[in-house]
């Protein structure tokens, strides 16, 4: 039999249900492999012992009706987990132990999932390379000293290295899809309002969404079915009829209309991305889709809009870290002095930079020129998509403008780092579902992804197109376990 850790979530569930393997065997395999993979630095907090204990408890009293029967799962350390340290990759939350559970993780435990550990991420999810984490860089298992993408970089690394069967990330401007693209894995950002934000450390509340990351499309459909739920505890959670995403998954997408937006052909885009996109269009045609050229005229304004909206909301959300009720406290002569020193020592450079930008654009006299202006442009970006969806059912684009880069390569230039998210950010601004699937490699043999964007609440079509294209693409990660001890 193939190694347990290289099985898909679907295969693991089947094997457990057929009693071919026990939950404890599965947990042991992932714990062992994780223990031997410390060089990747994917974990911030391990929950290995507890996971093994809970898996035994599951085996003693199994419930095979659950959707994730006894499956160990490591999650991004941005989800609050009751009694388990939650850091958001920040020094300021280094010792924070929540007394509550995020709804998304609770949904996973309710269906039989078991917490394996908390995965590294960019500090407060602000970054595209996992280099802003207080807990250090994460290695991409694809090659040494390559970033795993970000902000869900610990998640993408752990997933690609088979340290967890599936994982969950959060995506504010591309933080699920970009790391998935960089590691040859699948990452889905659901429609805004699908997955509850309750208990997720907040970054930019009008953009943040949790979503599944997995080795294949089917696994994402299983996990999405578990985590997507209406939640009264999140005031922007939306009460809509959710599909049984995994049982309704089909490769029959004949006649589906897929739009190709010309504005995504950006200046300086490498040839290999252009080629990948063209290949993707051919695959989509092979699957029976009808290809239609569309225009999203305000695409080039998305990143500038995002870099007003996201920092503005972040500066407001992060005002809560003041050294009083939880987290780090630095000593100061007065209350204000204590606040200022705590925040200066507790936050890293990128987080401070974004708080400063956010504070500036919201400050008196600048609000209309920046924040209000950005909200208006956001409206135009959303209208672009609304109009496109009168003609098409889904949109196909590259996921990122490049493959994974070396650690340190872009960390000194914030704007060049921000450009990573050029194809993913418009989707967050418009609140749409989007998935990244591995579709090929570049000249270095590093993975490249394609993105499928759907109509609001139409995750099913996004998944179906991805499922169908995945079969034609038949991508295989070539990972050599170079980091293993």
């Amino acid at each position, binding site marked *: 039999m193939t190694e347990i850790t290289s099985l898909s979530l679907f295969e693991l569930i089947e094997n457990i249900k057929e009693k071919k393997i026990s939950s404890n065997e599965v947990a042991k395999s992932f714990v062992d492999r994780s223990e031997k993979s410390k060089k990747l630095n994917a974990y911030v907090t391990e929950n290995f012992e507890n996971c093994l204990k809970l898996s035994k408890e599951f085996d003693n009293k199994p419930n095979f009706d659950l959707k994730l029967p006894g499956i160990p799962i490591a999650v991004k350390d941005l989800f609050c987990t009751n009694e388990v340290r939650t850091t958001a990759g920040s020094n300021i939350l280094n010792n924070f132990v929540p007394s509550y559970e995020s709804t998304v993780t609770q949904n996973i435990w309710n269906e039989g999932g078991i917490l394996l550990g908390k995965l590294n991420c960019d500090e407060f999810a602000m970054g595209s390379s996992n280099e802003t984490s207080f807990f250090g860089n994460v290695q991409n298992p694809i090659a040494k000293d390559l970033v795993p993408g970000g902000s869900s970089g610990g998640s993408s690394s752990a997933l690609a290295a088979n340290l967890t069967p599936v994982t969950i990330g959060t995506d504010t401007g591309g933080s699920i899809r970009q790391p998935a693209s960089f590691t040859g894995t699948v990452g889905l950002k659901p429609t805004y309002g699908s997955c509850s934000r309750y208990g997720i450390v907040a970054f930019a509340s009008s953009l943040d969404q949790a979503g599944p990351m997995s080795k294949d499309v089917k696994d994402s459909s299983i996990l999405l079915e578990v985590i997507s739920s209406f939640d009264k505890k999140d005031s922007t959670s939306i009460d809509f009829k959710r599909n049984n995403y995994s049982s309704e998954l089909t490769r029959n997408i004949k006649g589906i209309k897929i739009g190709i937006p010309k504005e995504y052909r950006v200046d300086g885009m490498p040839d290999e991305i252009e080629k990948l996109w063209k290949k993707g269009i051919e695959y989509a045609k092979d699957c029976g889709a009808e290809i239609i050229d569309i225009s999203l005229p305000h695409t080039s304004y998305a990143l500038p809009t995002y870099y007003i909206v996201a920092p503005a909301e972040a500066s407001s959300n992060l005002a809560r870290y003041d050294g009083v009720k939880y987290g780090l406290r630095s000593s100061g002569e007065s209350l204000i002095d204590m606040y200022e020193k705590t925040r200066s020592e507790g936050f890293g450079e990128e987080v401070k930079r974004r708080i*400063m930008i956010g504070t500036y654009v919201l400050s008196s006299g600048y609000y209309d020129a920046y924040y209000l202006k950005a909200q208006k442009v956001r409206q135009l970006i959303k209208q672009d998509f609304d109009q496109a969806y009168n003609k098409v059912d889904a949109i196909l684009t590259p996921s990122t403008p490049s493959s994974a880069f070396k650690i340190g390569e872009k960390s000194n230039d914030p704007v060049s780092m921000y450009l990573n998210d050029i194809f993913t950010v418009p989707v967050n601004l418009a609140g749409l579902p989007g998935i990244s699937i591995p579709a090929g490699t570049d000249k270095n043999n590093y993975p490249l992804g394609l993105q499928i964007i759907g109509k609001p609440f139409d995750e099913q079509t996004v998944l179906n197109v991805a499922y169908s294209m995945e079969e034609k693409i038949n991508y295989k990660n070539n990972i050599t376990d170079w980091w293993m001890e």
Partner: protein
Amino acid sequence: MVLCDIIFYHMTIDLKTVKHISKLARISLEEKKAEKLANDMNSIFEFIEKLSELKTENVEPLTSIAETTLRLREDKITSDNIREKILKNSPEKNDDFFVVPKVVE
């Protein structure tokens, strides 16, 4: 290029502004770091200036993607008494209180 309806205040962000913003954000800043931050902010704002190309006088701002009115809930306690768990996370406490540096003379 379309004429902009709002003239952006795209003067460069100087050290004095950076220090003022850091006060507002309650983040203490060393002189050396303030200079680097001013440079970074300027390059980011240069990039943001692109928005001034767009005419947006008659566009409604998009404040929320979820087009629902925010729900209200009954003002009722729903959690158990978790005072101790909450206080356990505080950097400094005294009995049932959070402790902060003295604020009154």
